[in-house]
């Protein structure tokens, strides 16, 4: 299936080549869960602080069970803040 992954701030270095500024379209196996996707990039739980699927936050404890579906957009930030 086709999904997209977005890496922001200091995680931009993990972006696979091709695609737009923050975003890459990916072909993944149907039924892939969120945590295994993150693990593919060797990003630690501390680094993957804010993880959104389609703009909805997914807490660390729910990432292993979260099954991705076609056209999902996964966005990941390290710990950041501002104001």
């Amino acid at each position, binding site marked *: 299936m086709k999904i997209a992954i*977005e890496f*922001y*701030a*200091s995680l*931009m270095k993990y972006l696979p080549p091709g695609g737009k*500024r*923050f975003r890459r379209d990916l072909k993944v196996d149907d039924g892939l869960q969120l945590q295994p996707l993150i693990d593919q990039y060797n990003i630690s739980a*501390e*680094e993957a*602080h*804010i993880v*959104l699927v*389609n*703009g*909805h*936050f997914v*807490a660390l404890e729910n990432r292993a069970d979260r099954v991705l579906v076609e056209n999902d957009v996964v*966005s990941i*930030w*390290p*710990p*950041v*803040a*501002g*104001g």
Partner: protein
Amino acid sequence: MSWTRKILRVNLTKGSCTSEALNMDWAKEYLGQRGLASKYLTEEVDPKCDPLSAENKMIMATGPLTGTMASTAGRYSVITKGPLTGAIACSNSGGYFGAELKFAGWDMIIFEGKSDKPVYLNIQDDKAELCDGSHIWGKSAWETDDILHATYQDPQMRIACIGRTAEAGCLYAGVINDKHRAAGRSGVGTVMASKNLKAVTVRGTQGIGNIDNADSFFESTDAGKAVLAENAVTGQGLPAFGTQVLMNVINGVGGLPAHNMRDVGFAGAENISAEAMAEPRKSDGKPNLTTNAACFGCTIACGRISTIDKTHFSVKDKPQYHGASGGLEYEAAWALGADTGIDDLDALTYVNFLCNEDGFDPITFGSTVAAAMEMFEDGAITTEDTGGIELKFGSVEAFVAVTELLVTGEGFGKDLGLGSKRLCEKYGRPELSMTVKGQEFPAYDPRGIQGIGLNYATSNRGACHLRGYTIASEILGIPVKTEQTDTDGKPELVKAFQDATAVVDSAGLCIFTTFAWGMDNIAPQIDAACEGDWSVDNCLEVGERIWNMERLFNQAAGFTANDDKLHKRLLEEAIKSGPTEGQVNRLGEMLPKYYEIRGWSPEGEPTAETRQRLSL
């Protein structure tokens, strides 16, 4: 100690400068800066006075930690009754001015009365005098800074001043110090202008040598600095990306208001984000971001120093904007950009430079222009009103043009200087002003983020994120994640953030430390520096006392529970698309509970019992 225990009282009517002892009983109840100066204001100023009359006072105040080696301890605040809102106003600024004031030996300056001609205050340690300021009246804050530095030939002199917008009567003018740091919100600079006070110059060589317990002070401040350095946000995220890192986050979670809050979500957000600021420009190959910079004493260094492409239409043939200066922070980038529908980073940076150069609040300004744009598109405002400018959402040329008008108060610039509440009233569309108590919202949409809506509604200085930054928890997961669309637990969260923030603002520290520090990091630093009991519990009680004192001032000024409200658009017009589609703010679910845990009556008034508990 580490208060200097000295107040400089400047009577602008009489032209006198006198020194008086700091009220130490109050210092122990209100700490310093925001809290202590607000105490003086509430004791000395009639809450019902006209903010721009001689009756109002303006206080520049430092905290007990200001000027010490604690990280970020360089802050000062400007406290007055604000002209935009009529509520108590307290605007906080970094840079170097606050610490220098402390080194000169002063905890605060109370300005009262009104001068009959332009003056500036010159402070050299103990010596303070009012000087003729007619030659700097009419100059920008940058020009004023240059002229005064040349006069005294002392690069170490620090200057806080107003720009031309304040003189022109813009109701949201700020006080600019060190050229690009601002006590920006609520029109504190307008009050300064109303007193005919153009600038305060300060040079302090006395230093601070009265730390109560130096050993434990260094122990706690060193520990605090280590926490900041090791924390991913304060040690890495903020120095590298600054506050602007939020642009994509808030847009991503469906919390970024756009087009005068008509919409949520802005397609151009990524073009004006921190990541975009760091990219080489297509035009000249240089990034917008030149470096990060710290305020006095700050070991985080989140400040953005930016440059604009010299060939960009906004600065072409204007070499004074070809150098580096204070760049976009998140709130400014949102208000000037997303809210007006503009994603031209160079143009926004130029307008941001103008905010610094002439001293006006980018949040209120951007929101006011956004309201004007919506009225323009509705036909309530026409090119006849704007002097021919097609003020449409997304029109960058129009935006730059009206900004330049605002600076001098010419033509439509005069109208924009009113702020959105008065502007929308003037043009018959009061419902298009996105404000609480007359002050414009910052960059987080309360429909998609419930707690921040409650904080906006109850903020004592009108809509403000810096009174209780619940975004930290609701979006960023600091210190713990709460669900952004839930209302459960939000009254407690808002109260806790509001009280803690009052402590930080009163100590002389920067609120950004709280991304890594809890009160158990902060209280020991205050306790070591200052005489008296500054345990965590007492600090939080002081914070709660400050919050209630501010509330009581506003109550006496005529504000009621009816002013603790959000705009109809935020309560009734559901978000049309994106992750927060269908959401409205559910203030009604949170406000009664908030009053209850604050110890206030259902009418939002602190009860006698609460006032007694807090010695108010």
